[in-house]
């Protein structure tokens, strides 16, 4: 009697991925096992994930006994299904937008928009204080007006550090820094002339308006 041993047929496992959502484990990813050209969609009962978890990273998985038996049933008795190389499941970071607040200060002649205080980037509801090393201001300057700003690489790294590796921080809409005009008071000179019966007070000459010790008109 000749016994023909069934040919061993290794299983090929697909790579799977899902986006971090704070609750779904790697084992929840959709993966496919293929044997002898026959694909089978696997669920989390069919596989064992090494160090299964919800955090961003790459996880190895392999068929467990349940999965192996399902595949054996699929291919029938002509082959013996054996496990092959492990597959990988990648949990990728969730993209999260940064919201930049608007800031303002009063013109002082030498403070640039980029030196504004109180700038905050909010990401995932968490505020991150920014300083001038964290931002890039378009056409930065000291004059009164509106200036658009965005996170630079350093600022992006700071925000990224706060949210952690489960999120991919994405810069979105720019913030605005407003340098508001300084208030300046016009001081008026006193003047006059001798009564001549015809010249009105409003016709006095030599009157000046002065601001910041500078005669203006």
């Amino acid at each position, binding site marked *: 009697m000749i016994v023909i041993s069934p040919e061993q047929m290794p299983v090929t496992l697909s790579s799977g991925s899902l986006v971090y959502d704070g609750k779904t484990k790697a084992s929840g990813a959709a993966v496919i096992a293929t044997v002898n050209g026959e694909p089978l969609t696997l669920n989390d009962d069919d596989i064992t994930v090494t160090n299964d978890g919800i955090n961003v990273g790459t996880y190895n998985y392999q068929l467990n006994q349940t999965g192996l038996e399902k595949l054996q049933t699929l291919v029938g008795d002509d082959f013996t299904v054996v496990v092959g190389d492990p597959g990988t499941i990648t949990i990728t970071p969730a993209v999260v937008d940064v919201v930049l607040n608007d800031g303002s200060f009063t*013109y002082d*002649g030498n403070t640039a928009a980029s030196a504004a205080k109180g700038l905050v980037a909010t990401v995932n509801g968490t505020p991150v204080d920014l300083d001038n090393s964290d931002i890039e201001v378009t056409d930065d300057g000291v*004059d*009164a*007006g509106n200036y658009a700003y965005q996170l630079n690489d350093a600022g992006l790294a700071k925000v990224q550090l706060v949210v952690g590796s489960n999120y991919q921080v994405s810069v979105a809409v720019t913030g605005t820094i407003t340098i508001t*005009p*300084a*208030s*300046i*008071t*016009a*001081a*008026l*000179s*006193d*003047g*006059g*002339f*001798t*009564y*001549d*019966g*015809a*010249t*009105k*007070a*409003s*016709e*006095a000459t030599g*009157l*000046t*308006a002065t*601001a*910041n010790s500078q005669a*203006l*008109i």
Partner: protein
Amino acid sequence: MSGEDIEVTNDGTGAGNYAYQLSDAGLAKVQSVVGTNYTVVLGGSGTVTIAQVVATTVLSDGGFTFDGTTKASEVTNLTASVVGKTVGLDSSDIDVTDDGSAAGDYVYQLNATGLAKVQSAAGANYTVRVGDTGTITIAKAQATTA
């Protein structure tokens, strides 16, 4: 600044103090000078003073004929003139040096009352100052023989 740059409260030609402030046009002019880094706000008012003209009195000469009792200061036909105004004077308005009733020339000048009377006639646009003295002459009476 020119007249259009300011607004004068109760503008006028009479002597006195007038408060003024920048008009909208003046404020806009100042704002354009300081540029967009500043917002100009109005401060305190300025003052335009129209000063009074100093006017000097001219006193008339007058007199009467000696009668033995009437003093020089009681003369009735004196006037003081200033800036075209003539004011009649009486004894309460003048001081007579060495006043008396004897015949002769007496020098007189306005006293404080007389100066106030002339100042009132001249009006608030003038500051009246006393000028030269005037003369009151008591003429000798014609002597009659019995």
